[in-house]
């Protein structure tokens, strides 16, 4: 099972006997990753003022960077000369890059998708038309050198009901996957993950998965969710995908990172997550708690001598009161570093707690307690109640 030349070894360490939740160890070229894992997003090859030295000492094993941004600046030439992103940013743990396609469709209004690739107007001064093809995306990602790279996929908004267009995207995504695999230069050191498409149509998701599992890849991503669809639709698709995908390979659910979503999706059997929210929100003075989030800018915290979270062992919670942070958030850049540290530590602690409870056989109780703390009046949203019910957890 453990082929030394394989850039990804995934071993299941434990399983919840009630739900589909599982704990795994994923060995990548830049070290091990304990799953389920949350990957913070360091878009431009840096994470909100945090030094990689700090992130390592917090136990971060993998972070995400964005191909579209890095391909624009510093650009592929600089990254090649620098010897890849790990070296450039002084991060010798694992990296994952997206394909750049999602950014283009979401950031650029003028993006047009053809069989060849995604055509868009460049953000540079010349404003010339540029085509991001599957081949080009992989070329950039090969230069960046992340341990996990994503295929370019044909992204359709989940809120678009045009089934014919979505069906086209499913087939095209598979065709693009083949083109990506064909030009991938570093199969010994970088893993391509295919992206399951099909938005909210179960039959299309089935088709997408059936096509992708034949490609001999080391893991799978579920794409096309977290794009404005209702949560009642969202969980059903995640549930379906984790049922259909092979259980000996990691499953990555893209763009999901709110605490309760992570808990539910772990119960549904997802292994990897990413989201900009925890790091982006720090800049606005938001700190994450197990029971939700607080904005330290609010005057209620001006004289609050408690740490953000007394159960958190991050440097920020060990050393600072809410009152002190209230006086500097959104004013000094260091305040953003301090809140980012807490928010990253929060995500890491949540995932560690999930893993420990799965291994201890107490995951069901953990989920029940977790949800009852967020919803003390037991007024659970239907999607949380239904999704957990589907994996045999009855909320208290």
């Amino acid at each position, binding site marked *: 099972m453990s082929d030394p030349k394989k850039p990804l070894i995934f071993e299941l360490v434990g399983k919840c006997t009630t739900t589909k939740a599982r704990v795994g160890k994923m060995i990548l070229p830049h070290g091990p990753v304990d799953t389920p894992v949350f990957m913070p997003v360091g878009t*431009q*090859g*840096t*994470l*909100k*003022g*945090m*030094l*990689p*030295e*700090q992130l390592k000492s917090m136990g971060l094993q993998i972070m995400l960077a964005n191909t579209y*941004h890095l391909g624009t*600046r*510093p650009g592929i*030439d*600089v990254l090649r*000369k*620098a010897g890849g992103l790990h070296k*450039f*940013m*002084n991060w010798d743990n694992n990296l994952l890059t997206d394909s750049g396609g999602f950014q283009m469709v979401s950031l650029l209004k003028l993006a047009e998708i053809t069989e060849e690739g995604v055509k868009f107007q460049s953000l540079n001064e010349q404003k010339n038309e540029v085509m991001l093809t599957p081949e080009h995306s992989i070329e950039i990602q090969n230069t960046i050198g992340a341990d996990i790279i994503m295929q370019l996929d044909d992204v359709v908004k989940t809120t678009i009901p045009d089934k014919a267009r979505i069906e086209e995207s499913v087939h095209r995504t598979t065709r693009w996957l083949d083109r990506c695999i064909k030009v991938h230069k570093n199969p010994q050191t970088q893993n391509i993950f295919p992206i399951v498409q099909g938005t909210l149509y179960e039959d299309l998701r089935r088709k997408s998965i059936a096509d992708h599992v034949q490609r001999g890849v080391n893991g799978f991503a579920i794409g096309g969710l977290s794009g404005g669809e209702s949560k009642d639709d969202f969980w059903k698709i995640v549930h379906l995908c984790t049922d259909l995908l092979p259980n000996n390979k990691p499953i990555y659910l893209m763009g999901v990172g709110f605490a309760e979503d992570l808990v539910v999706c772990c119960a549904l059997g997802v292994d990897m997550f990413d989201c900009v929210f925890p790091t982006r929100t720090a800049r606005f003075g938001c700190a994450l708690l197990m029971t939700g989030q607080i904005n330290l800018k609010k005057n209620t915290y*001006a*004289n609050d*001598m408690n740490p953000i979270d007394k159960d958190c062992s991050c*440097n920020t919670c060990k*050393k*600072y*009161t809410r*009152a*002190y942070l*209230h*006086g*500097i958030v959104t*004013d*000094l*850049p*260091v*305040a*953003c*570093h*301090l809140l980012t*540290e807490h928010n990253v530590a929060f995500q890491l602690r949540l995932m560690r707690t999930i893993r420990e409870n799965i291994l201890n056989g107490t995951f069901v109780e953990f989920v029940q307690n977790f949800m009852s703390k967020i919803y003390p009046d037991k007024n659970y949203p239907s999607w949380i109640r239904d999704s957990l019910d589907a994996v045999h957890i009855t909320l208290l």
Partner: protein
Amino acid sequence: MKFTVNPASQRCPRLGRLEAFIDKPEYSLETPLVLLHTQGGQIPHVTHEVLKLITEDPQILQIPLVSMHCYHEAIRLYNGRVSEFVGNKDCLTCITVHDPSNITKQGHHMKDKVPIFTRNGKVLYDSKMYMSMIEQFKPDMYILLSDGDTNISSPNKRIAKAVESTVSLTEQCIEIHKESEVLKETFVIAPVAGGYCLKSRQKCIDLMQKNNSYIQGYLIDGLHNNGSEVEFISFAEVKPVVDLVVQNLSPNKLVAVQGCWSPLNIIKLVKSGVDLYDTSYCRILTERSAAIIFAMEPQEHSEAYEINLRQPKYAEDFQPLLRGCNCVACQGYSRGYIHHLLTVQELLGSVLIMIHNIYYMLRFFRKIRDCIKNGNLDDLEDKVATQFKLLQLDTDKDMQVVNGSVDT
């Protein structure tokens, strides 16, 4: 807390020692010393956690009141020392009135009150309000409230007013200090006002003599209104003032200046007998994306005085800011990476530059002290002066290019 002068050393330049801190008896800091400039207790861009990666030595945080005014209620409820409140109980603290890295607005004077320009507007502090804050902060050292609003172009009337207010505020503050139980061990630095008028400086010192026994150090105040312009003050202009003040104070008193003095002027100030400085210059450098890299050792090759990481020529430069530098930024990160971070406006760019600048400034002060010990401070001055001249030539050239007056 006390200041002692090395008995073997002459008056200028001199070595000294700050020690016997209230709850840190093991700390001992040598002068000439640089305080770590902060805003709200935070070194700009560098958290206390990152500071630990820069230095493990004991440091004094310079905390401007203006950046702490928003905590006037919270600190009363907090009931601890300001070092702990700002997140670094291992550091010592020195409270100052204004922020040396920002220009202090002029004017707005009122009898026995000093205007402080916080981010929420002007606040008038009198001695009672100020000392009440100091008692809540419980710092290791602090500067008395003063009217330091003078500079080289201040008219005599303003200077006279500044001396009068400063003397009066000092007396009021010291009266409160004498009665204060919590400030019993706190180190007092009194401001000497008087702008560039030697007579006024002399008068200010004379009027403060009666409180001399309560004062452990003096700040040569009123040389400037803070901010980045301090870097360009010519030493020839301040020298007569500094010499007069230093010669007229008892030799066992600490002498301090504040502001973003250039390294070359710092050497000149040290030679004139000034003991205490701050790192606000590092912030000024970092805000203009510059790293200081001038050579300090005789055999060291100098590439430049400072480099500006925004320049496109650094995009593919994978060397550290300064080869051979042992700071965290130079150990792991390249000029190219920092250039990228600045170009895409990521916070880490300033963090890395500031790490280097602070590290380098601390090294510079170690070097100054070594030179005093070895009697070769003049050599360091020459070395830095030569490189500083090159920077000025470069800057002039850039200006000419901008003005289109250079032949190609």
